[in-house]
Structures are given as C-alpha cells and as structure tokens.
C-alpha cells in the first residue's frame, strides 16, 4: 500500500496546512489491510466548507460503524496546494491514511452545488483516476455521487459510474454489500454496475441512452437493458430515529464555516415555496424525536467538547415539539455553557425569547427572507409572508435590542416587473422608517443589510420550465436597485450576487448529458473552484460552450413546454410532475397553496408511506370521526 509523504517545505508554503494533515479529534482509525471495502468520501470543495457538511458526518459515521469498511475523507486542495502537488507529483490522498485516491474501492462525491462540478474532474485527475467513466477499468475505483444536485445527474453522466438519488444512510449498506459480492465473484466492471443498478435509488447513466431532436431537446431517455428500471426513485429514510446520527463527529483544528454540533430536527419542509428545490426534493417532512435529540446533544458535547450547538432543518419554527424541546435543551446548554444557535426561525415573541435565552452573545444580526418585494410576487412564489408580518417582526426584534437586520431577496423570479424590484428597496426603506422611534432608544438606529441573489430555476420545482433572466436583465435590476436605495437612505447596505456565476449554475442545474463535454473542456482550460468569484471565469465557460457547438442560453434562458421531455424525467423524487404543473399554473394566478401541516395538496410524496402525510391523515381521520 502506498502512502503519500508530505514534508515541511511543502506544508509551510501553503495557507492553513492543517487542512491537509488530518489527525483531528474523533478521526476514525482502522487498519486498511483489515477491511474489505475502502471508501473515500470526497467533498469537491475546500476543507473548511466540506468539514461543515452534515451529510458527510452522517455517512462517515454510518460506514465506519461497519467492521468490513473504512471510510476516509478527501477534499479539494486549495489552488496553492494543488500547484505544489502537481509540481512534485503528489497524488490526491485521503486524510485518514494518506492513501492515494486511486487505491480506494469506491470514491463517493457529494453534489451540494453545481459550481463545484469542475472540482470533481480535477480531484479525479489529481488522484490518478481517469476523469471519464469510459476510460476506467478493473484497476480503478468506482466513482459514485449523491446529494441534492444528483436529482439531475445528467451533466455529470460522463464522469460518474453510478449516482445515488436521495438519502444515503440505508442505501449505502446495500451498495457496500453489493461491492463485496461483486469483488468475490471476480466478474468485470460492467457486472458491478448492473448489480447496483438493481438497487432502488441507484442510477447508472451508462445503462441509459438519450435520444435528441434536431433542436437539441430530448426525444426520449431509454434504458439499454431490461434489467434496469425506466425510472429511478429517490431513496428516503422512513424513520429518522431508526438510523444512526453521529455524536462523535470530527473536531477540526482550524476554524471551519460551521464549526459546531449540528442537530438535525427534521428533513423536508412543509412550506412549498415554489422556487425552493429543497422544499420539494426532501418530502415528506419527517421529524426526529425530541428525546433522541436531547440525548444526542448530551453525548455530542461530551464526545467533542464543542461550545456550540446549532439546530438544523429547513425551517426550525415548524418543528412540532419546538417549545418543549427547547426548554429541555436550554436547561442543558445553560448548565454546560454551550451556545445554542437557532437558524431559520420565524421571528415572533416566542422565538425572540428563545434567542435571548439561547445565546449569551451580543445581539448582532437577525435574518429575514421575504424573497420578493411585493405581495403579488410573494403570492406567485407561495411565500406566505405579508408586509405587515415582516414589519411587526422587525419592530419586535428592534424593540428587543437587535439593531441590525439582514434581508434576503431574489431577483428575476417568474413574472417579476420593475415594480417588484422597486418593492425590494421600498420594503427596506419603510422598515428603516418604521423602526426609527424604537431603534433610537437603543442608540444608533436600525442597520439593514439587503442582499439579492439571482433566481435560478431548479429541477423538481414548479419553476423547472421557466426561463432564467439573462445576465443583462439581472445586472440592470441590480443597478436599478442600488441606485434607488442610495438615493433614499444610508441605513441600508446592499449586496448582490454575480449574475454570471448564477447563469452557469442555472445551465448546470438543468443541463443534459451533452454538457459533459463542456464541463470537460472548461476543466481542461483551467476551471476549478467556480463557485469562488476569484477563480470563476465566465469567458472560459463561454469558450467551452463554443468549442462544443452548444449555447448556454439554451439551458438557462429558454422556456420549456410542459410536454417537453426534461433531462431528469427518468428520476422520480416522489413529487409528481402533475403537481408541479398545477403549482406552476397557480403561481401565474397568484394562488397560494396551503402547507403540509394545514392539509395535503396531493404532491405525490405519499408514495413514501411515512412522515407528515400520514400524521396528517391520521389527524384528519380522528377529527372526522
């Protein structure tokens, strides 16, 4: 077995060398010779980002509980380290044993963000593994990928041997078992891929053929053999209390983005905001019990020594047992001097009281996400927030001593007009004005940071057919907004996102497998860390499109017909296409859809036979007698 050797001279030349040396508290140590399966969990971004990712912690823990498997971690080396590694011929290695990536049995990438795709190619290459799936043979590891972006796996079809759609805790065991079976059988590489293609939730792109019309749209997506399913259904965990959740997480030496214990309250979201992919691809809502969570909080603090716990979910306020759960949790955190952070809370008297108790730190910032500037547009996106809600929430917060507020909006939502854009500025300004009297008592007045991102239509949302605003339109809207704010007040700081990065994100999000060539070309031309402004080059991507005779606008800015075959139509996340079409039509009517807690809207997620769908049904039956 080969082990990578790193010397002082190399490590002293790079920023934060501890990103590359491992050996952290709670890192799992095993004898690689004593296991049957070696799995490299690869995060296609920097260590500081990757070590903040809950999914990796869960799967690392789940796999390492098996005696027959050793799961190790790999991150994308930052550009300074990559340069030195290439200069000295050092292959990309896993942090646990310094084993080169090419020596693993399976390498699994997590797809959290489209703009990290080029890092995957770069990591494979740096790890001594052929970048294209078709170039790999029996001496190479299998490359798999999962995570939210895997719901449209097509742009990565050329590079990934198999995708895992949905939640990994259970399916990963089936995959490892299949690998052991295959390894003992002595069969060829194709035989393993056929074997895993039979596991629910596993998608092997090379076993499907995509047929196109002349205009570049898809005619059909066909399985190449009868053994593979026409449609691959997303896997979910039925009962969160029945799967392991890590309490012995790795404690990094250097600060990471989310350097704390994360307690996952529930998966899914009851809200159904029409732009939000997470709101659809994690259905149905399934909660972890408060008893289990409190137990995890205690054991996690004991095993990690962390000074902070964060509650994790898409909408903390929607956790059904929140008040009682928080009471018990706070009793523990106060005693242990642990800070509790409560993201994605709706602001009301209850939550402000909670925040007051939870965090002893200075009352710095509160975050609100109205997403759109007018009531009309908020109705379009099914964001059930009114101007009055927001105003009273902010006033409440300011009166409670919070004097800085962050507001998040999106530019380019379907049906948006300049009136809606003006509405964003006006909302901020009216908040500053309405809080003037209250804030002055605390001194300083209310400071607002207003941020706009660019709306990116995502697969499996009611807006999956929508054209994205082009770069010029988004830029114009940003300038207009900046101008309007600057002319009216100095109390608002305005931030906005680079629309060129968002454009590429949109292309990759809804792309088909022809994009593989573009991604490959862009990477060859030097693309990596595309999500980082300082490394992203729009011109490079455009050149990669031209070189392959494709147009990025076809993917980003084109309206699809409801009848068009979408590149991800052979993936089923549980939510039906009929429901998404219904939601899209309602959006144009400005009609709201109730949330899952108030009643079922028949999205299709009942196929999973679990979660809120059934809790709700039971409640209704009880109410109806």
């Amino acid at each position, binding site marked *: 077995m080969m082990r990578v050797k790193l010397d002082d001279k190399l490590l002293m030349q790079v920023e934060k060398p501890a990103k590359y040396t491992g050996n952290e508290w709670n890192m799992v140590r095993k004898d690689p010779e004593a296991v049957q399966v070696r799995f490299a969990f690869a995060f296609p971004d920097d260590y500081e980002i990757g070590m903040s990712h809950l999914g990796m912690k869960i799967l690392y823990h789940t796999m390492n509980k098996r005696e027959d498997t050793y799961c190790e971690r790999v991150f994308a080396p930052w550009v300074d380290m990559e340069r030195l590694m290439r200069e000295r011929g050092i292959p990309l290695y896993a942090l646990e044993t310094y084993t080169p990536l090419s020596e693993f049995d399976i390498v699994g990438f997590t797809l959290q963000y489209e703009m990290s795709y080029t890092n995957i190619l770069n990591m494979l290459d740096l790890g001594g593994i052929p970048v294209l799936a078709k170039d790999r043979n029996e001496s190479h590891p299998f490359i798999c990928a999962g995570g939210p972006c895997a719901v449209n796996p097509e742009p990565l079809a050329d590079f990934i041997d198999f995708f895992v759609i949905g939640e990994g805790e259970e399916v990963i065991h089936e995959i490892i078992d299949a690998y052991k079976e295959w390894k003992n059988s002595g069969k060829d590489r194709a035989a393993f891929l056929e074997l895993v293609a039979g596991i629910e939730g596993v998608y092997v792109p090379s076993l499907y053929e995509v047929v196109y019309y002349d205009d570049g749209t898809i005619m059909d997506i066909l399985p190449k053999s009868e053994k593979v399913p026409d449609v691959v259904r997303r896997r979910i965990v039925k009962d969160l209390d029945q799967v392991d959740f890590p309490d012995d997480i790795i404690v990094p030496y250097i600060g990471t983005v989310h350097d704390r214990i994360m307690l996952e309250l529930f998966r899914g979201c009851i809200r159904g905001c029409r732009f939000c992919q997470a709101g659809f691809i994690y259905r149905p809502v399934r909660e972890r019990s408060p008893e289990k969570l409190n137990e995890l909080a205690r054991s996690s603090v004991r095993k990690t020594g962390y*000074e902070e716990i964060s509650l994790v979910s898409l909408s903390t306020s929607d956790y059904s047992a929140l008040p009682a759960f928080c009471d018990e949790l706070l009793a523990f955190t106060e005693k242990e001097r642990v800070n509790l952070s409560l993201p994605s809370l709706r602001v009301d008297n209850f939550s402000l009281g909670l925040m007051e108790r939870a965090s002893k730190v200075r009352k710095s910032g509160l975050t609100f996400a109205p997403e759109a500037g007018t009531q009309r547009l908020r109705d379009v996106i099914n964001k059930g927030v009114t101007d009055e809600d927001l105003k009273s929430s902010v006033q409440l917060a300011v009166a409670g001593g919070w004097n800085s507020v962050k507001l998040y909006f999106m530019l380019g939502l379907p049906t948006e007009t300049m009136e809606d854009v003006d509405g964003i500025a006006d909302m901020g300004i009216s908040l500053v004005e309405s809080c003037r009297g209250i804030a002055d008592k605390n001194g300083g007045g209310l400071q607002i940071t207003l941020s706009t991102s660019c709306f990116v239509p995502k697969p499996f949302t009611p807006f999956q057919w929508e054209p994205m605003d082009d770069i010029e339109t988004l830029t114009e809207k940003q300038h207009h907004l900046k101008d309007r704010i600057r002319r009216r007040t100095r109390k608002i700081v305005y931030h906005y996102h680079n629309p060129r990065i968002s454009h590429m994100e949109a292309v990759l999000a809804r792309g088909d497998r022809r994009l593989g060539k573009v991604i490959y070309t862009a990477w060859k031309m030097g693309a990596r860390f595309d999500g980082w402004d300082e490394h992203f080059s729009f011109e490079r991507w455009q050149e990669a499109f031209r070189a392959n005779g494709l147009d990025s606008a076809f993917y980003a800015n084109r309206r699809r017909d409801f009848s068009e075959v979408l590149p991800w139509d052979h993936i089923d996340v549980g939510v039906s296409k009929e429901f998404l079409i219904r939601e899209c039509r309602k959006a144009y009517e400005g009609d709201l859809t109730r949330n899952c807690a108030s009643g079922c809207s028949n999205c299709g997620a009942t196929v999973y036979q679990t979660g809120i769908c059934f809790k709700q049904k039971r409640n209704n039956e009880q109410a109806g007698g």
Partner: protein
Amino acid sequence: MARALRFRFARDERLKYIAHLDVLRLFERAIKRAALPVAYTQGFNPRQKIVFGLPIAVGLTSSAEYADIEFEEDLSPETFISRINQSLPEGIEVLEAVPIRNMGRIMSLIASARYEIAFSMPEAMAQDELSGIVLDFLDQEDITVMKKTKKGTRPVNIRPLIYSLSARKQDSGGYVMEAFLCAGAENNLRPDLLMQAFSQKTGLELTVESIHRKAMFASDFNEWKSPLEVTDD
C-alpha cells in the same frame, strides 16, 4: 490541591501546523471533553479562564509551552494532568503542573526562550569556520532588520535581543543553531527572523528545516527561572 494551576505542555511534529488560536481552541474543547471544573469569565460571552504564555507559531514544535488555568473548585495537579491528557489529541501533551496563587500572570512572566533551529546549506562548511562566522555576527553592535508589526514594517536592532548563539555541525551533515533569545509580550525575537538576519548579514545561503522551542524562562531577580518555579507572587 489548588484553585489555579500553571502547566507546561509540549507540541510535536503531528500538530505543528496549527496556529496559536487553534491551539487555544483545542485546549478549550479538550477541557470540556474532560469535564474539568474550569472557571468561566463573567459577562455576555463567558470564556474559560485559561491564559497562555507566548503564542506558538505555525510550524514550531516545542517542549516548553506554559499556561495558567483557574478552576471553580480545588483540583490536584496530578488529576488535572491525567484528565486533560486523556482528552488531548496526539501531538499535544501536558507534562507538568504546579499550584499558583494568582492566575494569569504567565504572559508577563515570560522573558526569554531557548531554540534549536535545524538548517541546511548547499555547500558544506567546517565547524570552525561556522563558529567563526557566528562570533563575527555577534560582534556587531547593531543588527538592524526590517520587522513586520501590526502597524507595518519597521527597522529593529535585534542584537540586544540575542542572549547567546552558537552553531554546530551534525554528523548527519545538517547544522543546528542553538539560540537563546529575548521573548515575551514586550520584546520578542522570533527565531525565523533571527535566521533571516543571520543569513542576510553573513551572506550564508541557508534553509531553515525546523525550529524547536526547548525552554522558556521567567526573569526572577536577575535570574532565569522556569515559569513553574515563579509561582508565589
């Protein structure tokens, strides 16, 4: 048994790539894991009452780092050492601890440090010649170098900060500089800056391979003493 302890710890190769603030955080978390009855500061953001003697730079190994810690109840040095070591990662180890009466003076106590600096040169040099060069270097009254500070780069005469210096050739072919330097919150000469100055002033082309802090001292009535011996103030 005591409410406050001063302790010495070592850091080896395995953890030399983390910065001073990371070492602080590492200790805070180890103390929490060990469930030691550490005292906390009052106020909005309670912090553990632990104070470190001198920052430890990235890349530096050390067998003599010092810190003061205060507890909510009395604790014996032996209990502290055994419990904290079980919770510290490999690469950092607490070696000694003594009771102190007043917590937190360690920062102002540290006055000097002894370093062992391994270096290499492209062309071999005899011991005599090397010793001569070091003596000539020390003979200067003014060794001014540019030092980076928070306020920018400014010239500093480092000669008064060098207490002793000698170089020896190793059997393996490398060289080791033994340096005894002024250290502490007020005046501090970093060993890498010393080597940079040495290279600049003597014209010797050299590469620093590793730096090890062997000892740190407090000044007690004109005598160098271990910080663990200066505890009754």
